[in-house]
């Protein structure tokens, strides 16, 4: 059975304090690994797709990386507007549904 575990559950950073969020996964053949951002009361917003180990993607202060067992979302010099829940999900080769972790709730204080 596919499993996605995210850590930490919650993270509090000072503005400008860089850090990383972790997503560990087990899947029977990886079709893709996805990162989403979710603000309270809203739907998830797509950030990145990673398909194979060694792949990296960047967008503004965010950088996502992938190995065979985990993915990291690196946040460089975060700002208060980066505060949100970050969700990781996988799709296996046997289907098309996203299998999500529980998310990491990020709070960036001024």
């Amino acid at each position, binding site marked *: 059975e596919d499993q996605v575990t995210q850590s930490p559950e919650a993270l509090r950073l000072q503005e400008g304090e860089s850090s990383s969020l972790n997503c560990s996964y087990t899947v029977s053949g990886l079709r893709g690994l996805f990162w989403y951002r979710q603000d309270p009361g809203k739907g998830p917003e797509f950030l990145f797709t990673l398909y194979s180990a060694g792949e990296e993607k960047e967008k503004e202060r965010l950088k996502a990386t992938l190995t065979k067992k985990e993915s990291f979302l690196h946040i460089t010099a975060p700002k208060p507007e980066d505060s949100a829940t970050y969700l990781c999900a996988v799709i296996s080769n046997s289907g*098309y549904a996203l299998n999500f972790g529980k998310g990491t709730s990020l709070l960036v204080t001024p």
Partner: protein
Amino acid sequence: GAGVSQTPSNKVTEKGKYVELRCDPISGHTALYWYRQSLGQGPEFLIYFQGTGAADDSGLPNDRFFAVRPEGSVSTLKIQRTERGDSAMYLCASSFPEGNEQFFGPGTRLTVL
């Protein structure tokens, strides 16, 4: 362009009532997905449509839940005899058939009293 839209944004109903939740996907997206999200959890898959047919409904929790997509565009999630445990955020997403990126709507917050 317009994103995925969902109506209503909020729905409050009483236990035992019937509810319908609507999803309008991004134009040109033939794949449509329904997910349910409880507080503090990630979204959980319910059902996936490719065109008009349900390609995978393995996530529907029981036979009180049903979804249709009669013309391959708008979809309706139907819940019969609602229970308090059905209270959650119901999310719809759409994608191109060959693409894997799913784009989500704003969700419908369902509260069963």
